[in-house]
């Protein structure tokens, strides 16, 4: 090991740093903030389930917000870092360790050359984000590096990581070492819970549902079933039967849309959702509450509270402003 060897950002490295996947973990994918502009062709937005957490990681490292990282689900991978590299782990606390020693969450640390990053017990949340100085590299597919497994687009050949994969790291705009120790102050760190109240606005087919159905939605908690993944969460709870048919002529759906099929059990659409759908859209979860919902696990509880669209916009702006204040975006 070369003690005191300058980090790659300050000199031109002979080759880009590589991360080796020794074990892939349960479901680890490359994600950024998503693929926009092609929904009219049926291309899902995808991207990080918890956009707030990956953005914090990138900003701590001085990366642009669009830099790609790894979304680690439940049971983390084991990764070998060929070269020294600044990293941050944000989102769910899956007990990350460097060479067996616990590392702090929401903080920039250096992975020494030849060191291993591992994950252990799940302490809170479901999805952790590994961001690295320079971002995870790879081809931009229709403007994004996000993996959408269902259509086989983006990331590493459109799939989750496998053993012996190699990940390239992009050129860091600054020496990553400048940011070592940079941390998201404790009061701003989210506390992921197993019981979340998400705020919603009325959806395009809200009128198809009776006041009774709305009452039930606002008063009873729903549980995430095992059929909950990056596409959406199937929820179990009181049925929300529409007054007329549950089916509509297909039109656009969005992340956060709450669809209700004929059985009355709502489906909350998440990052990998299709671009269009034919079920009535009762409501839409607001963007400010996406992060907490992204960290729920099957069996966890989700309640809903209705707010006006104006309130939803105000909450979007205030949560954005808070992040800008605590961690301004990196500017060139």
């Amino acid at each position, binding site marked *: 090991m070369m003690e005191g060897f300058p980090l790659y950002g300050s000199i031109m490295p002979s080759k880009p740093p590589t991360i080796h996947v020794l074990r892939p973990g349960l479901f680890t994918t490359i994600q950024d903030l998503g693929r926009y*502009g092609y*929904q009219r062709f*049926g291309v899902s937005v995808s991207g990080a389930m918890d956009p707030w957490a990956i953005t914090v990681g990138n900003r701590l490292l001085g990366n642009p917000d669009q830099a790609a990282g790894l979304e680690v689900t439940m049971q983390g991978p084991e990764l070998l870092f060929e070269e020294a590299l600044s990293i941050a782990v944000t989102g769910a606390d899956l007990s990350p360790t460097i060479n067996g020693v616990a590392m702090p969450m929401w903080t920039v640390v250096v992975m020494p050359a030849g060191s291993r990053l591992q994950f252990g017990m799940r302490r809170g949340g479901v999805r952790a984000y590994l961001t690295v100085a320079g971002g995870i590299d790879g081809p931009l597919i229709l403007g994004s590096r996000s993996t959408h497994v269902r259509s086989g*687009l983006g990331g590493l050949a459109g799939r989750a990581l496998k053993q012996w994969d190699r990940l390239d790291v992009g050129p860091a705009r600054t020496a990553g070492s400048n940011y070592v120790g940079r941390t998201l102050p404790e009061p701003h760190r989210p506390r992921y819970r197993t019981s979340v109240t998400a705020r919603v*606005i009325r959806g*395009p087919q809200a009128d198809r549902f009776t006041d009774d159905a709305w009452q039930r939605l606002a008063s009873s908690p729903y549980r995430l079933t095992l059929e909950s993944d990056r596409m959406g969460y199937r929820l179990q709870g009181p049925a929300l039967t529409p007054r007329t048919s549950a089916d509509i002529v297909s*039109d656009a759906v969005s992340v956060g849309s709450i669809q209700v099929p004929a059985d009355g059990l709502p489906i909350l659409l998440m990052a990998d959702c299709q671009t269009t759908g034919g079920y009535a859209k009762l409501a839409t979860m607001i*963007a400010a509450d996406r992060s907490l919902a992204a960290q729920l696990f099957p069996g966890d509880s989700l309640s809903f509270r209705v707010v006006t669209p104006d309130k939803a916009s105000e909450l*979007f702006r205030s949560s954005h402003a808070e992040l800008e204040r605590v961690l301004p975006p990196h500017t060139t």
Partner: protein
Amino acid sequence: MKPPVDVPPRIVPLSESALTVEFGETIAPHTNDLVLAFAAAVEQADIPGFREVVPTYRSATIYFNPLLADSSTMTERLRALMTNARTAPPRLPVTHTIPVWYGGEAGPDLSVVAARAGLTPEQVGPLHASVVYRVYMLGFSPGFPYLGAVPDRIATPRLPTPRNHVAAGSVGIAGAQTGIYPHASPGGWRIIGRTPVVLFSLTRSAPFLLAPGDRVQFVPIEETEFHHLFRDHL
């Protein structure tokens, strides 16, 4: 067909960063024309904060950055555009000729469609290919076109249980709709044939063959021709 009486479009929030403009509640060429003209007008309007527009059968959804545009300003801009869109001349549709091998291994549901229609299996392909279809919208998966409408006689409901594997290029029927699976995937449409034409490829300068508003003319081909053309497309 007589155009239905125009009702003023309804603008509803889909989220804090999206508005859906509904031009009707049914599948009709007239409604879809309004949607497409409006979507084109929105794309050309240079609206601050505009991200993308998704035209569908009967509505257009406009996605925007809520930090750069608020919902009420956006609604006003969209209302203003509606008037212009209604008077704009429609874009000339592009027509694509798509060869299809009907039946056999390519069309596992063709005999069921024929039986329901009271036709012989040989009659289904030519009837399916007898009309020029409109690409009402794309959705479900990258490049998947929703085409309509199939002749009444062969309109067939979806499979009661979707298949786990539908081959790439498969041509299916769901009610009065017909569509093409760009990639192998699970699917519940009744599969009657397969095309060698590649609908979505990242290696082409224009990755998507079809766009909303385009027209599709199917042409029946034999199995041998399918294999021949398939090699050409590789």
